[in-house]
Every structure is written in C-alpha cells, then in structure tokens.
C-alpha cells in the first residue's frame, strides 16, 4: 500500500500541535512520524480502527505520555510541562474516566468549579438531569457509560478553549449524541473552541468536523479538510483484464477475487482522476465509511 501523507503547515498559533511523534511499546512501533496540527476553531475528527493508536496519540498530544521521539505542544507550550493556566483552558474526556471516583457528580462539579474561571454551573446541573444521571450517586457506582457522560458534562461546563474527546459517542444514545454534536458545532462557531475528537462512528464525524485525520498502521494516511476529502478522493474500480494498468499512486489497493482491482485515488494536480480513462474503469464517490473499509479490510 502506498501511503499518501498530507501534512498541513504547522501554524505557530495552533492550539494543539504534534511534530514528528514516534512511539514504541516494548520495541514495537505504534506511531510513526505523526504530524498533526489543529488550527484555532477547527473541529478535527480522528478516525482509525480499534487499536490503531488513536488514544495513545491523543494522550501524547496532551502531554500525558512522553513519546519515544517528537514533540507535542498545547497553546504554544510544551505539552509535557503545561502550565496551570493552560490546563484550565483545556478539557479532556478519556475513554474510561476514573478520576475522583469517591465523589458524587454533584460534589465533583462543586469541587472543580473552584478551579475553572468560566465554570457553567447551570449547564452542568441541567445536562446531568437531561442525560438522566443521578447527581447524588458515587461516581464509582455509575456504569461506565454514565461515568463518561458525567465527564463529557464536566468538560463542556468548564467552557474550554480546547476540547479533546476520546470516543465520546460510545457512552451516549442517539439523542444525547446529537446534543453533544450540537454543543461542539455551536461552541466552535461562537467561542472559537478548538475540538479534537476520535470516533469510529463515522457519520458523527462527517457531520460536524472541519478536518479529518485517518490513523492506520501507525501512520496518518489522511489529514485534510473534510470538504477536500469529499471532493478529491474516490474509489477507482478496474476490471481484471486492465488491472495491470492501475495507477502507481493510490492510498490503498485491494484486488478482487476475479482479478479486478479496487483503489482509493486522489485527483491529480489538474483535477483529473488518475486511471479514469482505462477501459472499463469506474469511479465512485467515497464516503468516510467506505474509505475506512477500503483501507482497513
């Protein structure tokens, strides 16, 4: 597979930047030279299969893990040495939150309200009720889904400049999920909140993101504007007798049992689809989910 790597120009003002991040676990490479930057006010969707390293990358970008090499920056500070004031402008919802489990949701919110200058107590209170969470129950006694919902509310109530959500969709039913996406959309517009969220529910991402990044086999295969993706990538199908004429550069290529060939291609500099003039060629537009399957299968 020929990887197409798109690297945005790294703007100094970007609230979150990863530069040449490599990560190894016990001698095994899990992230390979990742460059990713979130422009202010952008909503970046990070997709990839389970185990692709999405959570590891997020934790490195937040300075929670030291990468084997490379550097992460948040609000133009080194992520590993983030100042307290930077931390109050940042909210992170891990996949399995476990902090402050000996408190109830209500107690946790009262406690956190002291540290966050923009804490929105009304939002926290109202959303707990709407999302049907018992505010008086110990966090440790909540189900994992409920626990993550509390954490999403906590993150939103702090009104962060940078919001990072790791697989938030798993804990939410469709109505609450839509509500979260609306919050993301309006905050990005009103307050210029920068958002990074990972999900394998691709339809959520397609709706609200401005940018999309695909992590596969330790590398970023795609990193571009969502609209660019839709307009510049397609699936090229070639019949068996002409499969040998397939263009050299493709994001993925998948041979069919009958000798046919299916490739994910990108428009060339002149806006043409490479290989489109091969006899029998078919060009199909590609949704994110199709792309995901083409590459991962």
């Amino acid at each position, binding site marked *: 597979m020929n990887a197409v790597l798109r690297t945005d120009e790294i703007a100094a003002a970007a609230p979150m930047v990863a530069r040449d991040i490599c990560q190894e676990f016990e001698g095994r490479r899990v992230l390979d030279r990742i460059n990713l930057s979130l422009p202010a006010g952008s909503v970046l969707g990070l997709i990839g299969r389970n185990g692709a390293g999405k959570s590891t990358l997020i934790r490195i970008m937040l300075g929670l893990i030291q990468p084997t090499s490379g550097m992460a920056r948040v609000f133009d500070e080194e992520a590993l040495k983030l100042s307290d004031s930077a931390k109050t402008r940042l909210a992170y919802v891990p996949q399995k939150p476990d902090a402050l489990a000996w408190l109830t949701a209500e107690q946790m919110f009262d406690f956190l309200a002291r540290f966050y200058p923009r804490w929105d107590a009304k939002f926290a209170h109202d959303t707990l009720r709407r999302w049907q969470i018992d505010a008086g129950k110990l966090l440790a006694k909540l189900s994992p889904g409920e626990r993550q919902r509390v954490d999403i509310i906590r993150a939103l109530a702090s009104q962060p400049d940078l919001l990072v959500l790791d697989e938030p969709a798993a804990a939410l039913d469709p109505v609450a999920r839509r509500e979260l996406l609306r919050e993301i*959309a309006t905050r990005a*517009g009103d307050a210029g909140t920068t958002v990074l969220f990972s999900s394998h529910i691709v339809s959520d991402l397609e709706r609200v993101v*401005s940018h999309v990044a695909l992590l596969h086999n330790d590398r970023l295969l795609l990193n571009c504007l969502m609209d660019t993706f839709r307009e510049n990538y397609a699936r090229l199908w070639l019949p068996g007798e002409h499969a040998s004429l397939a263009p050299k550069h493709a994001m993925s290529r998948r041979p069919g049992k009958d000798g046919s060939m299916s490739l994910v291609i990108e428009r060339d500099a002149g806006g043409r689809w490479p290989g489109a003039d091969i006899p029998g060629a078919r060009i199909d537009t590609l949704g994110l989910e199709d792309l995901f399957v083409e590459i991962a299968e």
Partner: protein
Amino acid sequence: MIVLIHMDASILTIQPAAAEPIYRQIVEQLRRLIAGGQLVGGELLPSVRDVAGFHAINPMTVSRAYGLAEAEGLLERQRGKGMVVAAMHKNTHSRTQRLSLLEPQLSALAQQARELELPAEAVLQQLKKLLGE
C-alpha cells in the same frame, strides 16, 4: 402562499454520509427552493449559528455555503439582519431553468440505465409512474 419571514433551519436537509460536501448540499437546496418559489426575494435566512446548531454541522460549512450562494447572486447580505434571498429572485424561474437543476440527477440516472442495459422506454415508463402520471 404564506410568506415566511424568519425561515427555520429545518427547511434544509443534510445528509452527512452523502458523497457531496455538506456546503454544496446547502447551496443546491437553496437554488432549488428559490427556483421553485418556496423562497422569495427578501426572505430572511436562518443564521449560520441556527443552521449549525439545528443540524449539528460545522458553522464554517454553513458560512461557506452562504458565501457561495451570495457570490452566485442567490442571497444578499443585509447589514445587521443577516442573509436574505436576493430580490432578483422574486419571480420563479422559467421551466428550462428549473429543469436544468435536475441535470446532475438525470445524467446519473442515464448513466446507470446504460450500465444496466435498460431500454430508454422502460426507464421513462417507470419514471412517469414515479412522477404520478
């Protein structure tokens, strides 16, 4: 016809999984609604914030769509009010103009019919049935 003063964001339909970018889905729908007379000159469009919030889509996408529709002359920016349907679109478009809006769908239909080796007559018959003739 009832003239809506403040159009609701629900007048637009968004299909996030469609191959067509969301900003183009919005422009396309505005074209159709205006050509079909459902939207008339001077009508106020929902704000970017309303559309983004209602459909849970990125506000930049909505801004981009409105900007393109403005450049196309479909919409006009009114200071302090927001976007309104351009006055030149007070009258509904001619039949030819409206038909031209179906061009992409008709081309796709024609291509698929050829791929399936269906005779034109059979396709037209089915289409007439769908159109309720």
